[in-house]
């Protein structure tokens, strides 16, 4: 059907060569990144790709994702139609749908015709949404987006124009199987003279060809590069939940953290190519939504822009000219953004293509702390206290046992006590959290658990140090703690803090420590379900709202244990806030933010407390000492502390004993 073989062949070759060159230029920059093995367990990876990329599992988690799902699958199906179109243009004698057995030819014609209509409608819906109901955190009116949408729309129109004029001309044997094109032929092109129709076929054919090749060549230069990268990015996604950061080896002459774009692992760079600027991460980010400078989408965007700027220089062995951090322009991430992250991981939980924002932010924190010693002033005493006295406040380690004065607590002894109760800095030093520690110790005793403590010899787990990028100090503390666990024969650990829990369980595993770590919410729930606690019903709790801790929920998938424990212990299911489970909103203290001032925008804990207050609770149940502090402070801020109490799960269960 192509009357234009020679001129088309020339244009096709030029377009393909140009596309190949563009793609090569782009993808060569990925190889600048550091090694990161994402080729293990191929079967699992293949399945992830099918489920998350082809199944669009996370895309459809939002209602409008359905539109993307439709476009995606239309695009997939039309890939065949467009491949046939291009090849037919080159080899009209040999490649033609019409050469297929007629049944198959008719079936494909019907499918392509209908799918093109769906694609066109999806494009219309997308345009209406962007213009009339622009989502807040998506750059809804971006030129790039409209160029792409217009190209897709134009491609569909050209498809219908071409096929309708062919049908009107009587050249299409599958005419009766193409309802949409047939309809246009009958209504728009009916009665036109044959030469006119031939001319229309010619025009639409060329429009279709040019738009298609133009689209191809536009991709590497637009955010729609994700069409090429999103599917492999789901293949390369981290197989485990991203709960930790890679270790660093402290050798002289090494570079620590990421202060230059090529120090990122290659997957970090590939992530930046996979972002489609959908804005879901920004929507859910506690920092973005309370007016901080951080916007996870823009962090990823800046990494990409920085790579585009510096990558070609690095390939040539030249020095970079745009700093990755703090240049104050596009392509450079601001220090304020880097410090604003609570590492709550909500961004990574919603990203449809599994971009790993948090590890990239920690990479850059490491550069600031380890290479430049440049960080908010408040952190200086925090770091020094941690290094000198292994706790955030610099309190004398001897005071770690103060909470236990007046009660009988055994030291942990291998063989004599089963569990180490790792009290944690908050549980040991903070007056409010000590009440939780006492409540938990009563529960452990009531449940017949054999447990002991390390007392003044317990070190801080180092969670905040690691999230704040002070890997050097974390590394030392982790080694000290692990050595102590090994010397004392510690194998099973109970923690009351989700941050200790995650660090002992996931971070320390990198050091070869195989510890059986259990968070008190899990243990309490097990004791309750096994009938080992005699419960006498809750008193004075009123309406109970539950808050998920990020490091318990999103990081370690502990959602049900605390809820189940609460329901059994109090006889009522806790009320959920608007955002809960994996969508839960951070209290604002994770990622070392506990030790930093929060002076920009609305306070994150206040935002969360307001959300809780919408449910008119009498009690807010938390499972983390940070969340406890943040909620109590937030309630004071809202003058609601007299009306609403904050209790840890352990305290609530303790009341029912």
């Amino acid at each position, binding site marked *: 059907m192509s009357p234009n073989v020679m001129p088309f062949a020339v244009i096709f070759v030029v377009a393909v060569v140009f596309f190949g060159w563009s793609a090569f230029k782009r993808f060569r920059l990925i190889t600048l990144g550091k090694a990161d093995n994402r080729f293990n367990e191929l079967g699992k990876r293949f399945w992830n790709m099918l489920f998350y990329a082809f199944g669009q599992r996370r895309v459809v988690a939002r209602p409008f994702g359905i539109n993307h799902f439709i476009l995606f699958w239309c695009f997939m199906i039309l890939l065949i139609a467009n491949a046939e179109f291009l090849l037919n243009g080159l080899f009209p004698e040999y490649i033609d749908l019409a050469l297929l057995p007629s049944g198959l030819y008719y079936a494909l014609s019907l499918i392509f015709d209908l799918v093109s209509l769906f694609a066109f409608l999806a494009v219309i819906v997308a345009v209406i949404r962007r213009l009339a109901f622009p989502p807040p955190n998506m750059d809804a009116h971006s030129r790039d987006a409209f160029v792409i949408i217009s190209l897709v729309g134009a491609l569909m129109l050209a498809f219908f124009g071409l096929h309708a004029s062919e049908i009107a001309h009587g050249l299409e044997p599958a005419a009766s199987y193409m309802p949409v094109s047939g309809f246009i032929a009958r209504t728009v092109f009916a009665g036109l003279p044959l030469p006119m129709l031939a001319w229309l076929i010619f025009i639409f054919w060329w429009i279709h060809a040019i738009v298609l090749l133009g689209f191809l060549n536009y991709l590497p230069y637009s955010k729609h590069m994700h069409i090429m990268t999103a599917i492999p990015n789901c293949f390369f996604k981290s197989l485990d939940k991203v709960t930790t950061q890679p270790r660093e080896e402290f050798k*002289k002459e090494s570079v620590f953290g990421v202060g230059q774009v090529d120090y990122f692992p290659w997957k970090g760079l590939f992530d930046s190519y996979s972002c489609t600027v959908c804005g879901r991460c920004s929507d859910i980010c506690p920092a973005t939504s309370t007016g901080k400078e951080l916007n996870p989408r823009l962090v990823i965007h800046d990494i990409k822009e920085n790579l585009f700027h510096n990558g070609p220089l690095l390939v040539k062995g030249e020095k970079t000219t745009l700093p990755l951090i703090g240049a104050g322009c596009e392509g450079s991430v601001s220090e304020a953004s880097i410090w604003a992250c609570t590492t709550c991981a909500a961004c990574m939980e919603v990203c449809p293509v599994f971009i790993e924002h948090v590890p990239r932010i920690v990479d850059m924190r490491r550069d600031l702390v380890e290479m430049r010693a440049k960080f908010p*002033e408040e952190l*200086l005493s925090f*770091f020094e206290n941690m290094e000198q*006295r292994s706790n955030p406040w610099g309190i004398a380690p001897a005071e770690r046992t103060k909470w236990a004065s007046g009660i009988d607590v055994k030291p942990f002894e291998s063989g004599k006590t089963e569990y180490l109760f790792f009290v944690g800095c908050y549980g040991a030093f903070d007056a409010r959290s000590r009440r939780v520690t006492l409540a938990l110790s009563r529960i452990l005793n009531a449940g017949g658990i054999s447990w002991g403590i390390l007392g003044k010899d317990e070190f801080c787990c180092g969670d905040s140090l690691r999230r704040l990028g002070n890997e050097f100090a974390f590394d030392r503390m982790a080694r000290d703690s692990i050595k102590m666990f090994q010397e004392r024969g510690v194998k099973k650990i109970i923690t009351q803090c989700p941050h200790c829990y995650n660090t002992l369980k996931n971070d320390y595993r990198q050091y070869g420590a195989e510890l059986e770590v259990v968070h008190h919410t899990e243990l309490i729930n097990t004791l309750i379900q096994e009938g080992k606690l005699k419960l006498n019903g809750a008193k004075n709790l009123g309406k109970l709202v539950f808050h998920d801790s990020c490091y318990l929920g999103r990081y370690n998938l502990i959602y049900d244990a605390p809820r189940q424990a609460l329901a059994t212990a109090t006889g009522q299911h806790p009320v959920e806030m608007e955002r809960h489970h994996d969508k839960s909103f951070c209290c604002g203290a994770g990622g070392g933010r506990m030790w930093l001032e929060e002076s920009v925008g609305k306070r994150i804990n206040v935002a969360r407390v307001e959300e809780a207050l919408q449910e008119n609770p009498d009690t807010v149940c938390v499972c983390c000492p940070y969340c406890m502090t943040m909620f109590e402070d937030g309630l004071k801020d809202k003058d609601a502390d007299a009306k609403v109490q904050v209790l840890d799960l352990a305290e609530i269960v303790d009341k029912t004993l």
Partner: protein
Amino acid sequence: MLIVACIKQVPDTTQVKIDPVTGTLIREGVPFIMNPFDTHALEESLRLKDKYGLRVAVISMGPPNTEVTLRKALAVGADEAILLSDRAFGGADTLATSKVLAEAIVGLAQKEEVALVICGKQTIDGDTAQVGPGIATRLGYSQLTLVDHIDSLDLNARKIRCRRKLEGWHEVVEASFPAMISVLREINHPRYPTVPMRLIAQDAPVTLWDNNVMQLDKATIGLNGSATQVRRIFSPERTQGEILGEGINDPGKVAQLLIGKLVEKDLLFI
């Protein structure tokens, strides 16, 4: 030109306990730190280095493990570290300590002109605030104590102008090189070491000057050279006081109760 920062390694006093039987410090398991005031002396030296290009040498008298603390000084940017350590220096009071430190500074001054000696106001274990002035007196340097701000340094005129924080007022003073200044904690925020610097400092050389090197008269150093001897160290006994007005929430009533009690005890006169 050289700035000499004098630092001391001290036990972390928040973790020190006194053995009630022997009356000595229980040192076991107590970590050592750089005397907090000295971290500010070191930081001020480094700031002057950054601004005026002077070299910084840190000196410390103490047992061999003081090397750890000197390395910390190297990790934040000191150019040279000298450990003054010898059994003969042991048991020194402030008189004998200032002797060794002053002689070490004389030794350094033979190779390079010393512009400033910077000390912390005092240590947190001895709390005397005498060693800095002692050094200055022995060397005949100008001494500017209790400095909370260095206003200017004039390398051509060889002068320093600083602000001293006294009770209730400030005093701006000027002195010619060489001068000893002792600093308060308000003067600066000490920096944090970068990891590459820490790794370099881990095996950077710390020069040892023992008495073979220094050749000091044994009657002037250590216990023999000390004018004071420690007779006894003890924690004062603490007795719990009386709890007044427990459960009273009215601030007026609480105040009334407290005033009544103070008057009763002759501690307040109305």
